[in-house]
């Protein structure tokens, strides 16, 4: 079910796979789900069409089964002995993102119960999210059980990079989608089979706009910017900075070569969100990384 309309159709473009699963012996689920609703002035018609296809293909073990369930012309006619001659006001007062928010809270409850600390990593493409994760896992894997969810529109590239570190990883490809939502996370978490007392890192789709509106059920949101970007990013994309808890400023080894003013960037970010914390790092040289590791340990308690 998707956060958008509650149907499976949206997810037909979304794939959730572990490294290797995209190869020939893959395990694929395809969902097609249509439910058009039609209305006319005299009768209230409600037509549902469902098409459900489920295929398993594996090299040694092949079984295919297709289900096509169709409910056509499933009509309900209502006649009312009273009619409204003028528009009647229905107070709705409903948050438009309520489906996503409800699922996010369900995720949050699951994480709390299993003592799983969850971070949602957001940034523009190319800020160094995956490199930060690779280095962090290698450094801390003896003391922290990491699980990783990678979000990208396409490719399994990031999942393969993380797999090399030894941490369990799953890749969500959103197709045309510009953000991860709480339903994708709920599904990915099931597949990952996360142990208690671990840390789940969710690398969101590289995008500083859309992911800001979609709560995934995370404990903390971490925004990463790199010094090769403009130092006015916080006021250009304030919504994301406003909703984050920690800002990591990456690639500080490049500061001598760029015009990025760290203090100015922090000042802008503080104007947007005065609770925001900052850590300056260079994932490449390791500078500042100890502060980041300490921050992580402190969250873990």
């Amino acid at each position, binding site marked *: 079910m998707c956060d958008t309309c509650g149907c499976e159709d949206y997810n037909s473009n979304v794939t959730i796979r572990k490294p290797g699963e995209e190869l020939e012996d893959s395990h694929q689920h395809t969902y097609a789900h249509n439910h*058009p609703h039609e209305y006319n002035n005299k009768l209230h018609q409600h037509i549902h069409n469902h098409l459900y296809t489920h295929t398993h293909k594996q090299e040694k073990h092949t079984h295919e089964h297709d289900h096509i369930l169709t409910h056509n012309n499933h009509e309900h006619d209502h006649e009312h002995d009273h009619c409204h001659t003028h528009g009647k006001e229905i107070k709705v007062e409903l948050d438009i993102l309520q489906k996503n928010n409800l699922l996010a809270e369900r995720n949050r409850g699951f994480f709390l119960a299993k003592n799983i600390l969850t971070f949602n990593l957001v940034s523009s493409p190319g800020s160094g999210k995956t490199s930060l994760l690779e280095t962090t896992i290698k450094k801390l894997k003896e003391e922290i059980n990491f699980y990783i969810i990678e979000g990208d529109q396409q490719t399994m590239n990031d999942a393969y990079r993380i797999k090399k570190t030894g941490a369990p990883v799953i890749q969500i490809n959103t197709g045309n989608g510009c953000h991860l939502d709480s339903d994708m996370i709920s599904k990915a978490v099931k597949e990952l089979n996360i142990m208690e007392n671990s840390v789940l890192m969710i690398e969101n789709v590289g995008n500083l706009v859309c992911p800001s509106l979609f709560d995934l059920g995370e404990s903390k949101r971490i925004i990463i910017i790199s010094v090769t970007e403009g130092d006015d990013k916080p006021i250009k994309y304030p919504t994301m900075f406003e909703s984050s808890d920690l800002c990591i400023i990456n690639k500080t080894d490049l500061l001598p070569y760029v015009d990025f003013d760290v203090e100015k960037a922090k000042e802008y970010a503080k*104007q947007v969100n005065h609770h925001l914390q900052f850590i300056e790092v260079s994932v490449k040289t390791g500078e500042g990384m100890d502060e980041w590791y300490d921050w992580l340990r402190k969250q873990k308690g």
Partner: protein
Amino acid sequence: MHELSIAMNIVDIAEEYAIKENAKVVREIEIEVGTLSGVVIELLKFAMEMTVKETILENSKITLLNIPARTKCLNCSENFNIEEYYSPCPNCKNYHSEIIQGKELKVKSLYID
């Protein structure tokens, strides 16, 4: 383009309520969009035009109500309207403030027959 998924959510909510209330026609839908909601009203309007086709909202009046953003200064307690997050207090020039309204993104009312 998250405005498109927002528009689809709106249609979904309208259909759910229309069915619940046995509506034959939805004359109007009122949607509240706060200045700081992260949604651009013009883009949402455009997304709604496409999304309502062949739904109960196809011929409905779509009213998008902007809720201005208002904050309270944490220094001098002045309440003031802002256009962006990084707006200083007009009284004491402090940037630390608490948002009182302006993050709304909700379906307010349906007018049905």
